[in-house]
């Protein structure tokens, strides 16, 4: 939690680590509209990578590409290459369902299933063909998302009966239960109070021992607290008047916040942004 130790730990984990996701020259379109242009971004294993930038610059769009959730949006199209452990995610032979089981998503708005707390967590494991001890997995996942102590006596109650912060941690538990390798989080704390936010942030430090995390956030302090690497995106208008997003700078979080190479990054992280 101490920010001054962060740059060291980031560089420690970074150098000798392999890349889990490679983003090579990726452009994303909605129909004819180009939302994201020419992104190169490598995600190291067991790191937390934060995507920051102004609204509409395509952070969510890019994040959704990592588990092929954009497939659900009619007209969405990806150019370039996204490789997960060397495998092209958009190869026609790849099953998107399988991708999503390895790369799970936690959404901005907590969206538990209208089932019991237990079933919410067990669902992911079941669809994944989990054969082991379900009670144990549910407990492990709920402990993993720092929710166990609050819900252990009411596992049969509906997931919707929890508070917003608890619901979000339930959604994280549900994602952990599919035992993915990467967890994508799209502004997971934007609807949470500061205390729940801190709990989720603490959680991320725990989770990255086991998973690789890509998180979209508007909260600069959050990025500096949780992320090892930070990518700053910006949006620019074309001659036609439409805006496309692009990656401005990607570096260790410490560098992005303290020694950015680009003026735009400097302006954004210091809050002087037009």
């Amino acid at each position: 939690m101490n920010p001054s130790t962060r740059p060291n730990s980031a560089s420690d984990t970074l150098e000798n680590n392999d890349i889990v996701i490679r983003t090579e020259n990726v452009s994303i379109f909605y129909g004819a509209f180009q939302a994201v242009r020419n992104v190169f971004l490598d995600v190291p294993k067991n790191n937390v990578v934060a995507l920051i930038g102004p609204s509409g610059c395509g952070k969510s769009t890019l994040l959704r590409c990592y588990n092929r959730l954009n497939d659900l949006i009619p007209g969405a199209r990806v150019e370039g290459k996204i490789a997960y452990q060397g495998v092209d995610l958009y190869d026609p032979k790849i099953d998107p369902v399988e991708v999503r089981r390895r790369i799970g998503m936690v959404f901005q708005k907590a969206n538990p299933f209208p089932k019991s707390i237990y079933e919410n967590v067990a669902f992911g494991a079941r669809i994944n063909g989990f054969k082991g001890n379900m009670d144990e997995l549910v407990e492990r996942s709920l402990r993993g998302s720092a929710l166990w102590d609050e819900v252990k006596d009411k596992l049969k109650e509906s997931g919707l009966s929890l508070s917003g912060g608890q619901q979000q941690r339930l959604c994280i538990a549900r994602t952990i239960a599919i035992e993915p390798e990467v967890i994508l989080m799209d502004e997971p704390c934007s609807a949470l109070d500061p205390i729940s936010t801190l709990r989720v942030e603490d959680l991320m430090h725990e989770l990255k021992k086991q998973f690789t995390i890509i998180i979209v956030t508007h909260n600069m302090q959050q990025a500096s607290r949780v992320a090892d690497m930070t990518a700053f995106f910006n949006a620019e208008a074309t001659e036609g008047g439409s805006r496309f997003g692009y990656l401005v700078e990607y570096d260790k979080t410490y560098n992005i916040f303290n020694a950015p190479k680009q003026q735009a990054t400097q302006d954004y992280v210091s809050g002087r942004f037009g």
Partner: protein
Amino acid sequence: MAHSSSQSAPLDNQFAVSSGRKMFGNIMTALVFSCVAIAAIPLVSILFMVITKGLGGLTPAVFTDLPPAAGVAGGGFRNAITGTLITCLIGALISVPFGVLTAVYTIEFGRGNKLSQFVSFCTNILSGVPSIIAGLFAYGIVVLATGTFSAVAGGIALSVLMLPIIIRTSEEGFKSIPRDTRLAATGIGATNFQSVTQIILPAAMPFIATGVTLALARAAGETAPLLFTALFNQYDAKSIWEPTATLSVLIYNFAISPYKNQQALAWVAALIVVLLILVVSILARIVSRRKVY
């Protein structure tokens, strides 16, 4: 205007309703209440009539005996009760899977596309089809093809009437589920099949159950489509491929018969149909109260 006058006039005078306006309000309230009373008259008088005329004849024999021959005293209509239950059951067995799966397609997969718009259009038309046409349809495809009136033909005729109700309420149920819930399931690797069977259907279940009970309530009282599909049977039907007695057709037959005993039994049967519909409607209310969203 307010400033100068508010200083001179006391506040409550300012806000007091003028007597003309008050009177208008009272008249309108009275009007609305009398309209409600008038609207309730048919329902109340039907219930009153069915109960007063039917309750006296409601004996255990009604449930255990067969319909009496003309001029014979006593008797019951156990065959018509089981017949109604069986034809409704057949109707439900056909319409529920087709109706729910249709709604799954129109809402979950084809939302807004040409085919689902066309299906919705057809559902609208189907719900306006007179029940006798549904009977004619079943007569054409089942009775003529099998060469016999039967519970199956009756059930198929009823299923045509039940189908649009079930499609509608299931669609409502699926629409009530937030998009986020579907995304959540897909986002952690559920297949379409898994998210429909394990998330969407359970969450929409109260709606579907309401639709099924409403459809059953409608089917239980239908007569016209059964007249020339299930027809009637003085005795217990030995199979679902035989002419089958139903409560509604029994009422039709006995109510216009010249024999007092049969007329009395028609009232008892009417009472039982009304009770059946009442029970089913109450069930529908109970299940729909357990809404998830």
